[in-house]
């Protein structure tokens, strides 16, 4: 059993009277991929928001490698090792594909805030961006503006941004949603390859059951903000709560897609 990398303790997000995430305590080990499932509005995205700091916890804490990061601002958490690909694509719209990735690479560099050197001459950052472009097969679009990119390519770039950041905790929020059948495997293969990195942990919100079956080492189920089930994939899939609250709906969804 490898060590715990990320842990949330009694984590709660309250919006007015509405409790979006309700006292979730959970630990995530290095080297594992945990799928997070649950119906729409269950609080999956908000749970990510709490971990990466976009939403401040009403109560509860987040620990990264034993360190309490609950009071840290978003940027500090990102630098400490919390990284995230967003459910709704969230890029720099008027910059090029290349520049989007270069900025991520720069954020990890020592001279990220250097004011007297030329950004165009930091070769290593450009190379890091190139490498990420290659990974998601966007090399040909590198000089295009984000706003000129197809939706599927924007989703790929969203993933590439996270890959370039290379955090300790990878959080994917429905990475393949809106991608075509031939685009999704590129991203899924990347995530699968990522699992080989034993010192990272991956959290994946996903609706597609076949993806979860292929990738997940463990599944947690959120329902109405509460942790409803947690365990090995086979176990959780069989549990009543999933059968009722989720699989039924998932099947229906799958049928609708056909």
């Amino acid at each position, binding site marked *: 059993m490898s060590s715990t990398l990320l842990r949330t303790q009694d984590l709660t997000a309250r919006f007015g009277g509405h409790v979006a995430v309700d006292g979730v305590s959970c630990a995530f080990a290095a080297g594992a991929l945990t799928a997070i499932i649950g119906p729409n509005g269950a609080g999956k995205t908000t749970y990510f928001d709490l971990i*990466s700091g*976009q939403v401040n916890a009403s109560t509860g804490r987040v620990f990264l490698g034993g360190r309490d990061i609950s009071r840290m*601002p*978003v*940027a*500090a958490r*990102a*630098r400490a090792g919390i990284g*995230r690909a*967003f459910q709704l694509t*969230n*890029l*720099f*719209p*008027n*910059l090029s594909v290349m*520049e989007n990735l*270069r*900025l*991520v690479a*720069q*954020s*990890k*560099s020592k*001279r*990220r*805030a*250097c*004011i*007297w*050197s*030329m*950004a*165009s*001459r*930091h070769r290593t950052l450009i190379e890091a961006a190139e490498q990420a472009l290659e990974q998601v097969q966007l090399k040909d679009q590198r000089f295009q503006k984000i706003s000129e990119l197809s939706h599927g390519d924007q989703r790929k770039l969203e993933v590439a*941004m996270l890959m370039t*950041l290379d955090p300790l905790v990878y959080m994917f929020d429905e990475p393949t949603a809106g991608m075509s059948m031939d685009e999704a495997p590129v991203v899924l293969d990347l995530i699968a390859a990522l699992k080989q990195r034993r010192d990272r942990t991956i959290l994946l919100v996903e609706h597609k059951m076949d993806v979860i079956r292929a990738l997940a080492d463990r599944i947690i189920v959120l329902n109405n903000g509460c942790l409803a089930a947690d365990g090995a994939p086979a176990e959780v899939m069989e549990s009543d709560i999933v059968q009722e609250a989720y699989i039924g709906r998932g099947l229906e969804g799958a049928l609708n897609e056909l």
Partner: protein
Amino acid sequence: MIRALLSDDLPRSRVLTLVLLGIVLCLALAPFLFPGVRTVDTAARICIFIVLVASYDLLIGFTGIVSFAHTMFFGFGAYGVAFGLIHLDRSFWAMGLGAAGGALTAACVAIVIGLFSLRVRAIFFAMITLAVASAVAVLFSQLSSITGGEDGLTFKLPRVLGPAFKFGTETLDGRLFGVRLNGKLLAYYLVFFSAVLLFLGLLRLVNSPFGRVLKAIRENEFRAEAIGYPVIQYRVAASCISAITAACAGALYAIWLRYVGPETTLSMEIMINVLLMVVIGGMGTLYGAIVGAAVFVLAQNYLRNLMGAAATLMQDIPILPQFLSADRWLLWLGVLFVLSVYFFPSGVVGRLRRS
């Protein structure tokens, strides 16, 4: 070499390159090409406003912050030089110290304003800067014993920069291409080369890793934060650097005019002019500052004459001369502005770069 000077940020348009080269050459050789008190004065003002407008562009165009306190920082630099030369002595040392003091004050005030208000929404920052700038302008015109009040302060520059200082009298007979070699000429070149340095410095800044982050923040501050850039710190730093540069421009202005007053350095009118210049030239390009300042200062100084001449020419035609009368120059400046925004919404530079 040129690429390094321009920080790999070339004009990227042949027409724009020519326009910029033309303006810079005219400014570099102004005392020789257009000898005359008024023309050289116009050239010096263009140099100074290029720096002021470029430093404002760093805020509004690159970082996406709207500030109305830019002339306040301009004023700090100008008054700094005046205080240095009046209260210390009439030396370069005192002049530099005064300018540095002004720049330091500007930096501190910018940091304080930024930390208090950049956390909140951008509109709040705009309002705070407006309030602080107005308060400072009133303060400076009330504290007559220190600032000379509405009348401002006149002072003497180091001898070397005064018109009475002559050089090259033996070797060149005191003239070069017919232009008198005196302190005023030196003062012009002090202004010109300082402006060049400051502009190239800003150009380097916006093309540095730091500058790229500013652009990212302008585009999507939420994501910039999520990939590890503390947005507030970057904004405060940018507004601080912008304030320092504005103070330097103010110092140059004071040196050139040998005078400071609330009207010439602190007024809202200058703030609005700077805004217009940024918009005419093109936001977020920096080169726009050169075009914007040149067009605007020239129009401000010569539109009146031009229109007066036009009115005389058309004396016999009814109504038209009244429209062209020199007193209507402000109206025409307005018309020019509206037209330029209509035809070049992304500024002259934005337009030239696209085509």
